[in-house]
């Protein structure tokens, strides 16, 4: 019978669940880790709920970095943000590999688990890279900058920390419309909340800059080199929905 571990959906929670499985020597092949929100109970399940605990999280994080290195831990984190189904299963097995192989895990190209986790992480990292450039803020009547997006993966955290460094002088809100999550920055720290309804109006000045940007975007294209296919290859359509210059 499968043992089911429920966690709260956060990365910290997931790592705590993994910690229990690893430290208690539970057989990983008969274990499933699943987020509380996605779990559909069946009466024969052997279910255990794991609490998120910062101390445990930091402990396993330290262990993973010691066994491998920072880049491997970042890979694990990015893979966790992926929207791949059953990501928990792949990452759990990956964690076991890290304990066995350490740093060398980066070169196990031929292993399917390693490969899959690698791909998930790469996909997430690529999407983060794109959105660093493709998120558009507008100035609202409430005096803060506001941006919305609908990423494929759950990347609002790394995106928010990127803008914390970049737009450190401004108040801003980033809104993941698909997941109803917001990141709020008050010139000191970022907070993550859920959000259903936001009523905002952009300022008159902002409308002017929107127009300036749209015109500039058009003016920059060289007619003789027109290549819409290349444009779409670099900037796939799924990014266009909230992209000012493409609307």
């Amino acid at each position, binding site marked *: 019978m499968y043992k089911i571990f429920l966690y709260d959906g956060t990365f910290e929670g997931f790592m705590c669940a993994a910690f229990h499985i690893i430290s208690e020597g539970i057989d990983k092949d008969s274990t499933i880790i699943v987020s509380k929100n996605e779990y559909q109970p069946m009466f024969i399940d052997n279910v255990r709920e794991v609490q998120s605990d910062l101390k445990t999280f930091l402990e396993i994080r330290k262990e993973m970095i010691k066994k491998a290195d920072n880049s491997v831990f970042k890979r694990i984190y990015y893979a966790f943000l992926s929207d791949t189904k059953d990501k928990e299963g792949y990452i759990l097995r990956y964690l076991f590999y890290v304990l066995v192989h350490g740093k060398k895990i980066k070169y196990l*190209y031929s292993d399917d688990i390693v490969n899959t986790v690698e791909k998930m992480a790469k996909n997430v990292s*690529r999407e983060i890279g794109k959105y660093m*450039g493709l998120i558009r803020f507008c100035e609202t009547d409430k005096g803060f900058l506001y941006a919305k997006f609908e990423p494929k993966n759950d990347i609002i955290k790394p995106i928010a920390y990127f803008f914390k460094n970049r737009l*450190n002088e401004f108040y801003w809100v980033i809104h993941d419309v698909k997941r109803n999550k917001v990141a709020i920055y008050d010139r000191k720290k970022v907070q993550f909340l859920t959000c259903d309804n936001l009523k905002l109006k952009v300022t008159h000045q902002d409308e002017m800059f929107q127009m300036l940007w749209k*015109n500039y975007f058009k003016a920059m*294209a060289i007619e003789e*080199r027109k*290549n819409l*296919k290349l444009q779409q290859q670099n900037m796939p359509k799924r990014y266009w929905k909230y992209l*000012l210059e493409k609307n």
Partner: protein
Amino acid sequence: MDILEKLEVLGAAAKYDVSCASSGSKREKHFGIGSTFSAGICHSWTDDGRCISLLKVLFTNECIFDCAYCINRKSNDIKRATFTPQEIADLTINFYKRNYIEGLFLSSAIKNSPDWTMEMLFRTVWLLRYKYQFNGYIHVKAIPYASLDLIRKTGFLADRMSVNIELPSEKSLKLLCPNKTKESILKPMEFITKVAEEEKNFVAAGQSTQMIIGATDDSDYKIINLSQHLYKKFKLKRVYYSAYTPVNNDPRILKVESPPLLREHRLYQADWLIRVYNFSADELFKSKDENLDLEVDPKVMWALRNLDRFPVEVNRASYEQLIRVPGIGIKSARRIIKNRVFHSLEFDDLKKMGVVLKRAKYFITCNGKTFERFLIDLEPEKIKQKLTDKNSLQRPQQLSFFDREVFTSVITGEI
């Protein structure tokens, strides 16, 4: 003229400038607005597929010079405009905080005098750095004939500076740019190189240049050879190539129907081989008046002429040998070297590692075996035919996103 119209005129006038890199700056960060990102960030892609990273504008398009290939030359009857430093600073800050751009790329036609123009560029950048405490990326042109003192002052505020070399030979320069001399271009270039070597925080992201190709009869050998010198002598970070877009009807310019994009693409590839793969111009070209093969990339071209060096045994070859195999780039070569320590590699392992075998398979063996038996005794012409048959010609691409980490296959120049 209102700001909307100015931006349209002076943005459009700057679009033939090729560089858009915003990467590689190591300027110290102070308090204030924004930051630079070491890998650079693209913020959009225009309808021609080129990326927008920086607000690329001319300070003015009113020019006292009359270069044959340039849309802004004095003899053209076009709409003219000039920004004020304040206007550009204001646009930059407002675009930046909305995340439209990564910073500013400021170029200019030469109005009044070279010194007047350079002074305006300096004032603009000064406003941004000091009045607005702007920490984003700034690329600014050094104007030929401007005083070196002004160039020096500006360089301490910029991440990157560039002087356009314009054309690949002195003869072509004389023909098409009667107002510019070789010295007027090389002198500031040399100056920037020198100061950058001596001073910290002077053009922290280095110096670049660009040249127009296809407007004169200069060969690819001449172009690549010149680039090689620029990289060696002036330590340039990048040389950009710009396929000539016919904007003027001038008898001195070679007739072109449309910009030679494929040639431009091949030049960028050859440039990578020079800069990253340690090829030399003389190796790539058989004779001195030669052009690159448009049908295959320059590494394949070179390999086909040097088949005696192949096949290379993947499990034994040195790193230097591996990166010279068509289809194996820096990343793949590194993976191969790291991985063959654990076990000897077969073609399947290479595939799983992400090595693209389409080209490589003709030039390598794994444990003595070739990819398919019949691949053993192929002649250059047959390999070339096989490589060009299926996909015929690849679409030419503007590779303007070279410096970016997200496009690792491009950054390592895997060809």
